[in-house]
Structures are given as structure tokens and as C-alpha cells.
């Protein structure tokens, strides 16, 4: 099986002093012709924590899917310098009643090494135990995942992300329905990724948390509202504008007249 590489790999872009991990160029993602992400252009700095903020239905999840190459139809471009991407989708996409142990679930993080047929070696198992310890689940290795609480299961998924050893980590609402203690612990993991020069992009709804922990933000409502340092992006004018845009969505819109710009 092929290891996970960014599908649009190009050399690092130098934007001012900050290297961009990702560059979105006039990106449109649509389902059944309805755009979920509409003509978005933005740059996401490397080795930095970026929060993806916006109202429900703003296209945040679709944007992450597009970055993973999982969106059905995209126009425009995503330029990406990451070697390997890890992706945490929303929990709904996992069958939590499936009979699989915590250790096996975490070990899957090494899929890009052993693939469908290879063997998990001693180092993989050792790293998996270490990852389980570092998300605070030591001793849970043999437990089947259907005995875990929502918070514990999210810790398992973070342990799996740890094992993926990615330089770009995409998190889709990682803290939905999670208690404060778990959020604190998992934020420590995210900060450690940043200190290891990994890029983190997280979809978040708690604006206080974004202001506190994420130096960089991208605010969108299908279209880009603002991106850059969080202080400026999450201004009350911008948030108001995002809300107004969300209320004006027309589910029966005609074809988009805006020509696709030829991007440089």
C-alpha cells in the first residue's frame, strides 16, 4: 500500500518570513454542484497551530477532506509541502461497537509502514504502548473500544495520530462533547506537535479556546472571511460578517458566475 503523501506536493513556499504548509488557491469544493467551500484562497503557516472557525455548514469539514484528497470534486488548487498527513475525522464515521482492542486501534497509526499485509514489529508495538501512556490511557491496551467513554475513545484516536508521525495534522472538531480535563490533556499533545515543528489545523467552535491556544486562525462561511493571526481574524466585525453570510445562504442558487481565476 502506498504511504500517505500529499497529493499536490510542491516545494515549500516562502511567504514573507513564514513558510506556508498549505496554500489554497481559489479552492471550491462542491457536493451535487452546491459549493461547500467557495473560491477560498489562503495560506496556512508551517509548524504552527491554526484554528478553522465558522458557523455550522461553513465548509470546514469539507475543506479538511479536500486537503486529504477525499472530497469528491474540487476546483482550484491545494499546494502542500507536507510529507505525510494525519487526519482525525468527526466521530460519527467510526463504528464504536466493533470488537477491536485499544492497542490494535492505535497500532493502525503505523498503516503507512506496514500496510495491509506487513507485520507490526516490536518498535511499532513499543511506540503504540508509549502513545497510549502519553494520552493517559496506560493499562487500557487490552480493553475493547466499545467499553470506552467518548472522552477515552478520543484519547485513543489521538494516540493513533501520534503513531502516524505526520508533519501535517488535521483535526475535525476534536473537542466536541469532550470534558475539560480531556481537552486539557489533548491540548498538551497538540502543543507537543507544534514544538516538534508539525503543522496543526483544527476545526473548533470554542472561540475562547481558539483565542487562548491557537495563534493563527482561518474564519470561513463557505467563502473566506479572514485568515491570519487570531486576534485580528476573530474581531467582532468579522464574526458578525460570518454570521450574516451563513444566514444568507441560498439553497436554490443558480450557477456561479464568478470565473475561475487563473492562479499564479
Amino acid at each position: 500500500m502506498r504511504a500517505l503523501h500529499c497529493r499536490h506536493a510542491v516545494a515549500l513556499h516562502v511567504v514573507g518570513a513564514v513558510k506556508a504548509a498549505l496554500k489554497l488557491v481559489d479552492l471550491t469544493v462542491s457536493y451535487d454542484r452546491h459549493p461547500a467551500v467557495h473560491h477560498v484562497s489562503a495560506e496556512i503557516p508551517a509548524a504552527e497551530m491554526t484554528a478553522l472557525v465558522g458557523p455550522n455548514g461553513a465548509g470546514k469539514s469539507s475543506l479538511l477532506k479536500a486537503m486529504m484528497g477525499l472530497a469528491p470534486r474540487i476546483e482550484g488548487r491545494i499546494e502542500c509541502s507536507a510529507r505525510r498527513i494525519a487526519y482525525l475525522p468527526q466521530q460519527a464515521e467510526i463504528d464504536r461497537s466493533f470488537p477491536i482492542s485499544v492497542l490494535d486501534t492505535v497500532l493502525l497509526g503505523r498503516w503507512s509502514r506496514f500496510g495491509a499485509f506487513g507485520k507490526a514489529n516490536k518498535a511499532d508495538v513499543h511506540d503504540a504502548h508509549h502513545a497510549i501512556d502519553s494520552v493517559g490511557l496506560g493499562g487500557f491496551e487490552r480493553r475493547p473500544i466499545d467499553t470506552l467513554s467518548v472522552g477515552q475513545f478520543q484519547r485513543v484516536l489521538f494516540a493513533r495520530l501520534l503513531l502516524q508521525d505526520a508533519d501535517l495534522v488535521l483535526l475535525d472538531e476534536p473537542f466536541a462533547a469532550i470534558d475539560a480535563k480531556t481537552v486539557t490533556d489533548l491540548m498538551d499533545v497538540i502543543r507537543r506537535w507544534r514544538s516538534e515543528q508539525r503543522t496543526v489545523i483544527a476545526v473548533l467552535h470554542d472561540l475562547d479556546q481558539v483565542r487562548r491556544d491557537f495563534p493563527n486562525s482561518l474564519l470561513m462561511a463557505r467563502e473566506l472571511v479572514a485568515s491570519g493571526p487570531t486576534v485580528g481574524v476573530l474581531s467582532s466585525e468579522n464574526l458578525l460578517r460570518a454570521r450574516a453570510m451563513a444566514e444568507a445562504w441560498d439553497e436554490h442558487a443558480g450557477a456561479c458566475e464568478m470565473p475561475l481565476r487563473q492562479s499564479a
Partner: protein
Amino acid sequence: MHDLLIAPFADFGFMKRALVACLCLSLGGSSIGVFLILRRMSLMGDALAHALLPGAALGFLLGGLSLPAMSLGGFLAGIMTALVSGAIARFTSMREDASFAAAYLTALALGVLIVSLRGSAVDLMNILFGAILAVDNQAMFLIGGTTTLTLVGLAAIYRPLVVECFNPGFLAAMGVRGAFYHYLFLGLAVLNMVAAFQALGTLMALGLMLLPAVAASFWSREVWSMTAIAAPMAFLSGAIGLLVSFHAGLPSGPVIVLVASLFFLGSLLFGSRASVRARLSRPVHLRG
């Protein structure tokens, strides 16, 4: 005792062959059954088994009561149904279970019609309900080969199949086409139904796969242990069913499936997890 349990198998070649056929079908079929349950596809599996009928009937129309013709026809019909239902579900907003139901009802009606074109009611009964006591050497090779292929095949695709069941999105994010393994699995499932239909008929081919697997889910909760419990249950159902049908002069297919149902019922009542007994016993909760 000897006369009751051993003699029928020792004295009659057809009983020996039937027993070996049951052993093979239990080994391969129960692991398929466990995955069908875990994928929440038990009813879709049933629909798939019914869908073999027009293919088997067409083989019967062209080649008479010939095993290769009917098996090949059944296999092709099963694969076609799986592919077409999958494609319908993907290209329209119809859910896959609904498209399976539509496909198998069509197939069943078509199959009965085709058999009635040429065959007698006895032929139809044979195809619908099977005749395990008529399992010949040719059928033995088909059943044995299917079991071998199933066990080797499942072992090979075990990991991607498990991840496809449990977290298909992760597999997609790893750049693996989960649908490929899904269809390989369906192919193996159809192959097992074809092997079983000579013995148990298209209507009950799934009985020996699914009932023991469902019963096993009341005893354990790991893929491997469920299979390890389901396979012996399936084999015992086969052996007991054969003996009962031999002594009582009853048709073997339904008896075998009914014995499997008894295992299911027993597990449902007395199993160690999520069973009626476990629900009623209310053990004292732990301190922490």
C-alpha cells in the same frame, strides 16, 4: 448408542460425504457469517443467497441437473447482484439494503419462472431447499475448494477488511480503496453460498453461516473468538441435523438449519453476554 450416532456415518457413503461437506461449510462459512454480522449485512447476505437462484436456474435450463453449470450460473448471478446493488446505491441516493432487496426479489421471481419453464416441482425443490444426502464427489471438491479458498482469502484480507468494517474513513485517508476489499469479501461470501446451495438450497444456504455466527456473538466479542465458537457450533448443527434427518426420515437441509436455530436460541437465552440470562441476573455492580 453406536447405532444411533456412529453407524449411520460408518455404514453409508452418502452420510460420510454429507458429514465432510458440513465440516467444510462450517469452517469457511462461519467466518464469513461473523463478518456479515459485524458489517451489519446479515439480511443483505440473505438477499444475496436468494439472488443465486436465477443463475442456478439458468444453468439448470442449459445443462440440466449438472453441478458445474448450476454453480457457475449461481456464482455469476450472485456477483452480478452484489455489483449492481452496490452500483445502484452509489449512483443514486437509494440505500444499499433497499437496492439489495429490490434486486433479490427480482432474482427470486425470475429464478422460479426459469425453473418452471422446464423442470418439475422436484427440481425446483432441489434448487430451493438442496439435497445434502445427494452430495457427490464433484460437489465435495467444490465445497472443499471453496473452504480452502475462503480461509486463505480471509486470512489475506483480514486487516483491511476489519478496518473497512470499523473505520472506513481511516482506510480511505490511508489511500486504500476499501471497496476493493468489500467486493473481495462479497465474492468469497457468494462462493460459500454457491458451495452450500447444493447441500442446503438457495433459500437456506446462509443458515449454516449466519445462525452459528449470531449465536457466537452471545458468547464472545472478538472477531477470532466469535469464529472459533461459531465453527464448531455450525459443524455440530450439521452432524446432529444429519442424524435426525436420517433416523426420522426428514429432509436434511431444514433439519440442519433448525438445529442451528436451537443453538441460536440456547445462546440467546443462556449466553455469557447480552443474553436473556445476562440481562435478568443483574449482578451486584462493582465498587468502582
